[in-house]
């Protein structure tokens, strides 16, 4: 399965988008450090036209969490 969110995150983590799943997270990806986290947030916001609240951001450390947050803003992560 490929979707837009996977592609955006894969670009930042510098891995093929096929390597990304809903379970991909800061815990499973050694590249996903705090700087990449910021890059991911910027890139996701840019791609989906949303603006996460500051208290959400530290929690958005997995693809699933980001996907859920996007859905809560009415954005379609696929």
């Amino acid at each position, binding site marked *: 399965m490929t979707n837009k969110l996977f592609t955006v995150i894969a*670009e*930042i983590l510098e891995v093929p988008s096929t390597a990304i799943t809903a379970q991909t997270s800061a815990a499973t990806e050694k590249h996903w450090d*705090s*700087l990449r986290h*910021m*890059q991911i947030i*910027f*890139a996701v*916001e*840019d791609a989906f036209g949303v603006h*996460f609240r*500051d208290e959400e*951001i530290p929690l958005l450390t997995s693809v699933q969490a980001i996907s859920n947050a996007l859905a809560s803003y009415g954005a379609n992560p696929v």
Partner: protein
Amino acid sequence: MTNESDVEESGGAHLVSVQVIRNFTVEAIAPFLTRALVASGFSPELRFGGFASAYQEIAEGDMPSTDRGVCMTVLALGLEEAAPDFGHVNWPAADVCEHILMLVRMAVATWSSPLCINTVLAPLFQPWGLARGSELTEVENSIVALNSELRTIAAAAPGRVILCDWEHYARLLGEQGTYDYRFWYSSRAPFAAPFLKLYAEDIAKATRVLSGRIRKCLVLDCDNTLWGGIVGEDGLDGIQLSTDTVPGRYFYEFQRAVLDLAERGVILALCSKNNEADVMEVLNNHTDCVIRRNHLAGWRINWAPKCESLAELANELNIGLDSFVFVDDNPAECELVRQMLPQVAVIQVPDRREQLPSLLFRDDLFGTLVVTDTDRTRAESYRIQRERRELQRTVKNPEDYLELLRTRIVLRQAGERDVARVTQLLQRTNQFNLTTRRHDESMIRELLASPSTLLLVCEVFDRFGSVGLTGVLLALRKGDVAEIDSLLLSCRVLGREIEFAFVAAAADWLRREWKTEAIDAEFIPSAKNMQCADFWERCGFVRSGSLIDGVIRFRAVDVTEVISRSSRSFITVEAET
């Protein structure tokens, strides 16, 4: 014929390495910068310096040279994180500004690779409000002075120090687009994505220009682009083009923007499906049409597909399609050109016509880092070329054409004022260049100072005007013999036998001034100069052997014969002393 500045460009993904030296968290720029560089055809590698080590990294000197094409350093220094009290009472703005200026000066003085520097942003909010005391004034003046100094530094090193104007991004974007407080306080990363995108675009643009990938030619549609309405239907008086009423004024202002670009060296052409006579009537007779026939290097005004017309124009102007920017209002035409000629940058006229006047400045597609005198007169020289081609088409016999051109060449010994142009010609000329020796500027200065060296330059004029300094001959005195080290002619003037007249005049000079009895000359074959393989023999030289170490040698023992064989009756020669 090829314009000499176009020869060295090539396709393919260029390698580029960018290192960012900074005093705050700027990593969030990475995806935007990578994307901007990839979109410009680069294969980028980014490297970020340490968080608190800007000083050491600058002091350590240039980035290690790699095999990665262009190397660019971005010095990203802001006030935001430079001292902990940013924007608060007693924030030592003057000291912080001085420190930043010191870092930039050090980098500019010690580094030789291209460097992006930036203006800094004053705190958006300050505790004083309307109570403008001396402290606020001091803070603001320090920042204004720093930015002014940074602009001066960049202007003094054009092409090496590039200014990324943060103040300008902030003006364009406002608070929301500039700052992202979420990451400022959590990660020392003050800037928002839109700001970082503009910054990334400028860095990518500078990289593009440094690697010679620039757009040079603006090709414009006419109806609903240069004016509102359709000239073929609405007529000269019916089209919308006016200095004082809308919508005509949008188009008038757009035309002025086009002329601004021409002023900095962009070549102009038209590509329109129209009757040529209708368009020419507007260009010649409409009182508010500021783009005139004389501004144009060429045009295709006919009913042929625009892709064909663009390809023909590229051929006629001797520049690559990848240096074209094409503007049209018709979405179908735009899409077709994008599909068929992906190397052309296509801009569609916006639906909101009030955006038309600033359209061409927004993306600064014609980005150059330096504007030279040659750029300022380029439109003129292309116009002259066009008129020459028109004459050539009307004359059947090539000899008549050369006669009608009334070519005049003026020879003189090069002086200090010629060093830049002579070096440029030596570096860029490929086709008519007998030895392709790429002497650099310091070498030229050395040669100028030497009494046993003759550096002759040749300026060409004809009935259409000046073609400029287009020929260089370098001779070395070896007793009674003169040795021609270099001879070249810009491809702008090839095909007119000027090279012969130039050699005749130079030989005459050598005979008179140096009492030269024989002239030695060389031909060093390259991939691009085979057209001059038999040049020396045609001038009366005799080949003295075969190819040895890549060089073929020639000698003329009778200078008078060289002069008589090379002189051309249809070229007037003048010597300036």
